[in-house]
């Protein structure tokens, strides 16, 4: 920490600049068609936000790695994996919920909920997602942790980068990349377990019997994790992610963001112990906030696109404030509005209830309610009737007319169920399955967790009826039922 204090003794022009600042300098000096990346060496920081970040890092990674191994009892030959996206079996399992591809609207609903929740949280508290929960942030944090383990903290890393190649540099760099690749492989390896029974796949994977998609997915995620978290880091957020651009529409002056309270900090300048704090700001221009920033920016320049609101500069600044004996919170989660109010010598106001937060909250409640209602009222059976289109009807020897249908009966329960099929709406109509004598009801078994395609013939005497008659198929199984409308064509428009 002495290094930080030391900077106060140096002339300001020698202070370490933010990466963005150095980039600007470089651009001024060289111009050029392409922008080189200025490496960022974030310094380790201690404090409450850092502690929260560590806790969330462990929690999110634990969720990611453990989830595929959770078991959930399901009858028969069904998968007992709690969370499984089964592309081969075309089912999505999530604990007690099981979804079919036809129910993809639930997934859409879930994504809408996620988007709205993100909007709401961003409008209220700024980019919490970016700073704490985004996989890019979490894995980058983890990779920097490894980097620090091999190469030391910021200054050591910068020295190592500038140093000529040596055995020491080689093993530190080599070790770091080896561990990175191991972590990346662990990431990609865990991903594939979400798509196939985890214990089975683990065995298959190492004996070369896993599907090729598993190996490709694993390789792809290993590569992206290694490149994104190890090499690209903040560039993913700045150049590749659309969210920093979109969030501009969510934020307003009342949104909480990591804020440099310029009303309190300015005018900034180095401070000597003997000096008075009168007539100057609390910022001693020590650049502690700059050197810890993983995005390589200077928070004192104000709200910026690159800022992921991780709060590490808050911890860094609080430490300095403690040291120089000023109150904490020169950098804090605050709103632009509050800063402006304080600058105008008015007490700051915080408004959580604003038009946009109310809109987002209402929309979120409505969509969540719809999805919950839909899941709670999910029918165990589903019925669709596909009319034969060619021929649309068949006239039989006695002048009666027969229409063919294919019924798709979906049994979403985990047990084979007997089902009774009946027809409504056409008096005297007879119902038959191929090979059966016409009657009023068809009884069939629908296998567990499957769609049964059932050919059905409906025979009726047209008796001068209209060309098109509305009808409805109904199924009943135990207490459950389903119905679907269809039409019966009598051929009245083209008599024999």
């Amino acid at each position, binding site marked *: 920490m002495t290094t930080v204090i030391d900077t106060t003794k140096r002339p300001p022009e020698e202070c370490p600049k933010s990466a963005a600042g150095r980039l600007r300098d470089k651009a001024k000096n060289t111009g050029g068609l*392409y922008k080189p990346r200025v490496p960022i060496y974030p310094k380790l920081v201690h404090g409450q936000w850092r502690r929260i970040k560590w806790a969330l890092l462990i929690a999110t990674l634990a969720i990611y790695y453990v989830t595929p191994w959770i078991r959930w009892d399901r009858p028969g030959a069904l998968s007992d994996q709690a969370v499984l996206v089964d592309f081969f079996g075309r089912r999505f399992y999530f604990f007690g919920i099981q979804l079919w591809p036809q129910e993809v609207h639930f997934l859409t609903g879930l994504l809408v909920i996620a988007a709205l929740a993100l909007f709401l949280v961003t409008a209220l508290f700024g980019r919490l997602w970016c700073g704490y929960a985004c996989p890019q942030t979490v894995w980058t944090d983890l990779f920097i942790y490894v980097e620090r383990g091999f190469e030391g903290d910021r200054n050591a890393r910068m020295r190592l980068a500038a140093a000529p190649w040596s055995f020491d540099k080689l093993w530190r760099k080599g070790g770091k990349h080896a561990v990175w690749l191991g972590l990346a492989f662990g990431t990609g390896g865990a991903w594939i377990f979400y798509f196939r029974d985890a214990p089975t796949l683990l065995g298959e994977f190492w004996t070369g019997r896993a599907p090729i998609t598993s190996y490709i997915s694993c390789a792809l995620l290993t590569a992206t994790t290694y490149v994104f978290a190890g090499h690209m880091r903040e560039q993913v957020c700045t150049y590749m992610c659309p969210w920093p651009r979109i969030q501009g529409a969510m934020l307003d002056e009342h949104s909480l963001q990591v804020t440099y309270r310029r009303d309190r900090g300015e005018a900034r300048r180095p401070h000597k112990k003997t000096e008075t704090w009168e007539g100057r700001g609390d910022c001693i221009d020590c650049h502690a906030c700059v050197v810890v920033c993983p995005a390589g920016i200077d928070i004192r320049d104000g709200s910026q696109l690159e800022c992921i609101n991780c709060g590490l500069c808050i911890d860094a600044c609080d430490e300095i404030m403690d040291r120089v004996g000023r109150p904490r919170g020169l950098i804090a989660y605050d709103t632009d509005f509050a800063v402006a109010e304080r600058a105008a010598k008015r007490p700051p106001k915080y408004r959580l209830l604003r038009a946009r937060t109310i809109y987002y909250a209402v929309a979120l409640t409505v969509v969540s309610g719809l999805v919950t209602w839909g899941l709670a009222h999910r029918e165990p059976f589903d019925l669709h009737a596909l009319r034969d289109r060619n*021929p649309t009807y068949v006239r*039989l020897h*006695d*002048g009666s007319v027969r229409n*063919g249908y294919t019924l798709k009966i979906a049994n979403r329960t985990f047990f084979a169920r007997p089902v009774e099929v009946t027809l409504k709406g056409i008096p005297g109509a007879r119902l038959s399955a191929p090979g059966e004598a016409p009657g009023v009801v068809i009884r069939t078994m629908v296998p567990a967790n499957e769609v049964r395609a059932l050919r059905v013939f409906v025979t009726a005497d047209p008796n001068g009826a209209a060309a098109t008659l509305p009808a409805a198929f109904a199924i009943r199984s135990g207490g459950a039922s389903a119905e679907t409308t269809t039409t019966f064509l009598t051929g009245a428009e083209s008599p024999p």
Partner: protein
Amino acid sequence: MSERERDEHSGTETTGHEWDGIKELDTPLPRWWLWTWYGCMAVAVVYWVLMPAWPGISGYTRGLLGQSDRAQVTQDLKGLSAQRRTGEARLHAATLQQIEADPELQGYAMQVGQSVFGDNCATCHGAGGAGGKGYPNLRDDVWLWGGTLDAIQHTIRVGVRSGHPNARGEAMMPAFGRDQMLSAAQVDDLTEYVTAISGRKADVAAVGRARQTFTDQCVACHGAAGVGDVARGIPNLTDAEWLYGSDRTTIRDQLWNGRNGVMPTWQARFSPETIKALAVYVHANAGGVAEPVAPPRDVVQREGVAAGASTH
């Protein structure tokens, strides 16, 4: 080259373009974009080496991997026929009735049948099998040559008047008018008679005049009641199903010209297993009932009509 203007805030050069006071920044691309571009070039070069790529005068560069879509398709087709062999073997071993009783095997037969029907039968019988004028409807319960599984299979094998030694269709409908076997007036009267026995209003006097002609000329094949004979492919004249049409003009035309339908034999073209699958497919689409042809309705009553009842 003159010094370009720099934006004060970002330190980036501007392009010199300006719209309503807004200047366009000439922000440099990040360097890794350039690397990505070089990477794509490298991949392209590797691709040229490995895969077929460059056209020449009399061919093209084949690539080290020897990739050929044509060879791939041939390979796939081989795999497909190997897959089909299992199904074929099962079709071969089972009787038609067994195929129909086994849902899985029936499903397979239906798939094969649908594909073969679409390629070969649909030309005349229609894609859905509903037939057309002169081409029997295969979806109803009226069968010229029998609608049992075995009858359908046999018809597909030998055809109708196909030249096959066992072909169906020895009995022929004479051209009563064209060959001057009957006079025009007699054909007109017979038309009324046939209309009457199919349960419709007809000229009673004409029906009376035609009774003897019907007995002399038609009963031998169509039977005294006109219900036909499935064994010989003789149509039932009393039901609601008409191969060429039910109106008087069409009936008279048929009496005058005596058209006889033809269906090719498929024995030489299809394997026995394919014919089995086709029979199962056609049978199922027609209702899948073991003996689909029901006894003609109200034969006796219509006999009465034909005999000169005066209700019409």
